[in-house]
Structures are given as structure tokens and as C-alpha cells.
């Protein structure tokens, strides 16, 4: 399997030929008068309605197939092949758009902005994986999301990480989700799309910085399996929540676990919970005291987050282009000697009065004050819950996939010697 991964990886990298990356635009074309009529510049046409629904259908089919392969067939090879199809279709053919991860922003903006309506197909891209995850676990991550496949292809030497490190890095997606929702709700920016590491590769078109971003992420992905999925993906947070309550989640063993420990080290995502039969390794009283303390601290952490968020609202609002423009105008002295910043020139030529801009900015900053407080409270809550989860040691007798973080990739299944048919007999 690994050898195939290596070959596939180099095939893809070879395809991304250097000229495409390094190409620069030719010297501006001259205005010839050869009878050729230069067509009007057009924005890319939206995808035809029918094709958008085809995408939804493909999403449904791939999710269904992925779920079947994981839960019924328990086929890692099947999951792998399906994930390659998803990479080709949702990644290179659909060029990473629309994607469920980015759809968070569309849905948020539709909820908070009266002037924006989320297309039904985008809404389905957001909801269908969540519904599937609520029913069957994160099969979307296993074989449908092209980001996951891409990172899986480079995961040559995954290194196990400790629980605390996983928990610490695992808080980043919550921050990212919170910021993405805040900026989408205030119609500021779609940061998930702005920092989409792989869309440039799918489209073979991105700035050097974004190619470098993707490249470095893939380099880190050689050792940290699926770094984006585990420690950045904001949609992964929602999937994690859904998967915790999933109706039928995959299991490592098809029947009773024989405690052979063969699966102990196979999960590159540290998503297998080990048996915990010693009910209280740290001393029951001590653990209970810690939990009580943290439970009492939790509201304080939330309040602290609310306060900190409120204090940071002007910094967060600075990401908004209108706020940034207003600050630029206030900070830039009018000087004939220095060329004006293009944004300011564009604003002055728009005819909008500066006072009108300032009023608009004041409203945006007010929205950010509310949003930043909620965001801060959310971060405080996540921090507190993460600490609580690290301290508590639930009783387990078997090796179980962690329902929240398991990607249902079926890698561990290949290592399980228990046969379903045999045990059934």
C-alpha cells in the first residue's frame, strides 16, 4: 500500500510541472488593429444548475459507498480507491469548490446577512456529510474529502503524538472555526477559502506563497498524518461533534476484541482509545477533585474568554476591508509628494463621503464587539472542556476508535485478525 502511495504521490507532483508554478505573464499585449474584436471580460460563469445537482448526487453516492465500504465491507482498499476518485472529482475536476469545509461560511453568512441567500446545493454540501456522520461516523473524511486523500498520499512516516500534544493542537480548529464564523457573520472575509492550502494545487494556479503553504503543510504531513484534518479543519470540529453521537460507528474488530494489541500502533491519527481497565490510575479522590475544580473553573474560563474577546474586537475588526480602509485614510497624511495608496484612491473616486464610511465602520466594530465576545467565550469553553477530557479516564475494556477523532479510514481493520464469519460460526 505504501509503495502505491509513493508512486501516486510522485505522479501527482510530476504533473504539477514547474512551468505552471513559475510561469509569469507575458509582457502586456499590444493594442493591435487586426480586425480582431476583443471580447468583453467576463466573470467565470456559475456552474450550471444541473451540474451543481450532479455534484450533490456524486457527494451522496460517494458518501453512501464510503459508508458501505467501511461499515459493511470493511475494505481499506475500497476506501482508498474511492478516495482517489474523490480526489480526482471533487479536487481536480471540481477544483475544490464547492466544498463542505468552505460551505460553513456560506451558511453562516446566510444566517447573519439578510442580503445573502445560500444556494440549496451549497446547503446540501454542508448538511449531507454532517447527517451521514451523525448516522455512521466520519466516512466523509475517510473517502470523500479530497483534502484528506491528498494528505494521506504523503503520510509516509507518521509519528505518534501524546494525548496532551494532540489536545493542544486539537484546539486550533476550534479557533479557526470561531474566526471563520465571526468573519463570515460580519461579511468580512471567507478565511477558510483564503487559507485553503490545496485549492491552488487543484487549480494549478496560486501565488507562490500559497504553493509554499501547501508544500510545507504536505512536508509536515509526512510525519504528522493529515495535519490539516486534525489540527486545522474547522469542518472537522462539526464532524467531530456529530460523530460523537453517531448511530453506527465503525469498529476496529468485527466481533469481540481478543486483545491481541495488533492495532495498537496502526492508527496514524492517534484515534484509537486504548483499554482502560484500571478504574482510577491517578487516585479516584484526586481525579474527582480535579474535575470539580475544572467544572468550577469552566464558567470563569468562559467569562475570561468573553472579556478577552471584547478587548480584542478592534484587532479582529481590522481584518474587515472597510475598517482597514477607514484606518488607512485616518493614518495616511494627505501629501502630494507621496503616491496615494490604491485603496484610498478607489474610495475617493467612488464619491462616498468619509463620514459615511466612518458611520459604517462604527456599526461593523459594534458587530465585532458582540461577535468577539461570543468567540472568546467559545474559546474559553473549548479550553475548559479539553482540560476536563484530558483528566477524566473513562473505563474501557477494548481497543476502540475514538468516535470524535476517528476518520473511519479503515486502516486499523486490516490489522485485526478477528474474522466476522468465523466468530459468527
Amino acid at each position, binding site marked *: 500500500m505504501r509503495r502505491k502511495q509513493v508512486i501516486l504521490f510522485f505522479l501527482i507532483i510530476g504533473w504539477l510541472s514547474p512551468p505552471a508554478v513559475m510561469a509569469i505573464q507575458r*509582457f*502586456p499585449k*499590444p*493594442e*493591435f*488593429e*487586426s480586425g480582431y474584436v476583443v471580447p468583453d471580460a467576463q466573470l467565470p460563469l456559475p456552474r450550471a444548475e444541473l451540474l451543481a445537482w450532479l455534484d450533490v448526487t456524486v457527494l451522496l453516492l460517494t458518501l453512501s459507498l464510503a459508508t458501505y465500504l467501511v461499515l459493511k465491507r470493511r475494505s481499506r482498499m475500497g476506501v482508498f480507491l474511492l478516495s482517489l476518485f474523490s480526489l480526482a472529482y471533487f479536487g481536480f475536476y471540481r477544483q475544490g469548490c464547492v466544498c463542505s469545509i468552505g460551505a460553513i461560511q456560506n451558511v453562516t453568512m446566510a444566517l447573519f446577512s439578510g442580503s445573502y441567500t445560500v444556494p440549496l446545493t451549497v446547503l446540501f454540501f454542508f448538511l449531507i456529510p454532517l447527517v451521514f456522520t451523525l448516522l455512521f461516523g466520519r466516512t466523509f473524511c475517510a473517502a470523500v474529502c479530497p483534502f484528506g486523500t491528498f494528505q494521506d498520499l504523503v503520510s509516509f*512516516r507518521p*509519528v505518534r*503524538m501524546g494525548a496532551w*500534544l494532540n489536545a493542544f*493542537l486539537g484546539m*486550533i480548529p476550534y479557533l479557526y472555526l470561531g*474566526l471563520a464564523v465571526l468573519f463570515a457573520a460580519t461579511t468580512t472575509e471567507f*478565511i477558510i477559502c*483564503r*487559507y485553503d492550502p490545496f485549492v491552488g494545487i487543484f487549480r494549478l494556479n496560486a501565488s507562490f*506563497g500559497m504553493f509554499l*503553504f501547501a508544500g*510545507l*503543510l504536505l*512536508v*509536515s504531513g*509526512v*510525519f*504528522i498524518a493529515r*495535519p490539516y484534518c486534525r*489540527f*486545522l479543519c474547522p469542518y472537522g470540529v462539526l464532524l467531530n461533534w456529530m460523530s460523537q453521537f453517531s448511530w453506527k460507528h465503525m469498529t476496529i474488530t468485527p466481533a469481540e476484541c481478543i486483545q491481541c494489541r495488533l492495532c495498537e500502533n496502526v492508527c496514524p491519527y492517534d484515534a484509537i482509545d486504548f483499554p482502560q481497565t484500571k478504574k482510577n490510575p491517578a487516585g479516584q479522590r484526586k481525579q474527582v477533585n480535579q474535575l470539580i475544580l475544572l467544572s468550577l473553573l469552566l464558567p470563569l474560563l468562559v467569562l475570561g474568554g468573553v472579556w478577552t474577546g471584547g478587548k480584542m474586537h478592534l*484587532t479582529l475588526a*481590522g*481584518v474587515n476591508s472597510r475598517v*482597514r480602509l477607514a484606518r488607512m485614510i485616518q493614518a495616511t497624511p494627505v501629501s502630494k509628494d507621496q*503616491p496615494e*495608496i*490604491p485603496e484610498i484612491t478607489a474610495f475617493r473616486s467612488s464619491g462616498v463621503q468619509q463620514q459615511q464610511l466612518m458611520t459604517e465602520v462604527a456599526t461593523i466594530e459594534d458587530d465585532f464587539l458582540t461577535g468577539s465576545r461570543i468567540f472568546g467565550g467559545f474559546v474559553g469553553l473549548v479550553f475548559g472542556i479539553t482540560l476536563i477530557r484530558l483528566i477524566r479516564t473513562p473505563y474501557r475494556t477494548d481497543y476502540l476508535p475514538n468516535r470524535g477523532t476517528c476518520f473511519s479510514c479503515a486502516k486499523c481493520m486490516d490489522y485485526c485478525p478477528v474474522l466476522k464469519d468465523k466468530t459468527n460460526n
Partner: protein
Amino acid sequence: MKKKIILVFAIILFLAIVAWMFRDLFTGSPELQKNPYDYGMKELRQTDTVPAYKEVTPLKPALTTITSIATGYDGKIYVAGKGGVDILDISGRILKSFTFPGYATCLTVMPDNTLVIGMGDHVELWDPSGVQISAWQPEDTTSVITSVAASQHKIFVADAGNKIVYQYNELGKLQARIGEKDPSRKIPGFVIPSPYFDVGISPAGELWVANTGRYKLEKYDNDGSLLTSWGEASVTLEGFAGCCNPSHFTILSDGSFVTSEKGIERVKVYSPDGNFIALVARPESFDEGTRGLDLAAGSNGRILILDPLRNQVRVFLPLKKH
């Protein structure tokens, strides 16, 4: 141990990526302050080629705004500009000046030393002593006269406004309209995106026109048929860069061409068949943004370049005979 090092490396790398994202989001890239539409010419202006000419002391006309230059058959240098003409010798001494109302946009000298001066929308003939002989206006309205060239009985007038070259006799009578778009005669017409449209006459009496939008110098016969052309678009020294170049040219006694460009300000010599021979002046020799580098051929291989920004006639001497 090795695994730990790898893990630390990978985590630091990952955290660096996350830190970059946050920094980029909140502080904004310094690139934001740069004009994304800025037409950066800095790199294109650089060249490693050493010029085959050296600059000597420039000549300073009395006129405060100069636009055009020509050398007469008597070896004198004629400089025209806002409100008059200065006649200089090779050392830069002003031999004669005369004034007129208006703004000369181009100038040439006939074999009998009569000055043909383009005045934007009309043409004037002047005696070198400062007496006006005649004046006429092209029939077409919206004329922008950018260049004139003359032999004994022919005066060619380049009109950038109407993208045409008129041929007059010395009395101002229209003889021919050259280069007008005519698909039946396979004449594609001139492409002149900016008011730089130069004409010249070779020692053999052939008319050459700078079709700047096509980056070519084109040769026309007496009935206005296109005979030949050379030139290509390129930012390299061999070609012409920008939207429309060469902005000016002059023809040396051996039939080779000297061209000047705007955008990337540079002056070069080409063989009579259009092969690049030598660099006269590199872009660094001029102030950035200099336009209208009119040219004239001086004695002893000198190349005279009118620098309107510095209000000088720049003189370049060949380091050796090509």
C-alpha cells in the same frame, strides 16, 4: 530519539504555518501596501550589454522646452520646441534663434536648408534666417502631426491622429496618402496607440515609417505600397518593448537605423536589414519616464538624442567604428 526529533521538527513546521496564517490575517501582507496594478519596469530596464557609444558633453539650447531635433545638410543642428527654433553648431554654440507662436512638435531640414516644422495640427516651412515661407493644414480633422521628413521635392507628414502619412510637394500640395488601411491592396494600416509616429527618408530616398503598435519599421514606395518591414516585440535588446515602439528613429548615412524607445528608455543601432548591432544608451542613461527621445545623426558617427526632460541634446560618440 530520532522519532522525537522528527516529531518536534514536524510540529514546529506546522505551528509556523499556523503562525503565518494568523500573522497574514491580522497584520496583512506588506504586499497589500504595494499597488497590485503597478507597472513594474525596474527589472526590465536592466541590461548587461555594454553600450558601444560613450556620452560626451551635452548641448544646451536656449529654448526652455524642446521637442524635436534635426541635422541639416550644412552640418548644423536644428532644435525646435515651444515658441521657436535654435540653430547650433557641433560644439553647442547657438548660431541663430528665431521664434514663432505655437508649439513645434517635429522638425526636419530640406536639402536647401528650408525647415519643415510640424506644429501639431499643421505644417510650416521656414527659412533658416527665421522667415516663414508657407503653412498648410491636412484635410483630415483631428490631425496630430508627430513627424516630418523631406527630400528635395517631397515632404512626408506623419499624422498620429489619423494614422496616416501624407506626401506633399514643397508647395504644400497633397500628392499621396500613404499607409491608409486598404485590404484590397493588402495594406493593414498603421497601429498607433500613442502620439509617437515617426517617419524618415533613407539615403536612397526610401520612405520608412515606424508602425509602433506592430513594433515594426516599414518601408513604402511612392504609391504607398508596403515594400518591406522589420522589427519584433520583445523586452530583450533585439526587439521593441512596451505598448508601441520605437517612438523615434533616424537613418544613418550607411542605411543603418538608430531607434529610441519610451517605457524602457533605450537607444539602439540596427543594420539596414534590421539586425541589432549595438546599444547606444542604456535605460539608466535617462531619467525614468522620459519620453520623446527624438534622434538625429551628427557628423563623425555622432548620435544626437534630444532629451526633453533634461532639456538637452545628448551627444553619443561611437567607441569604435562598427
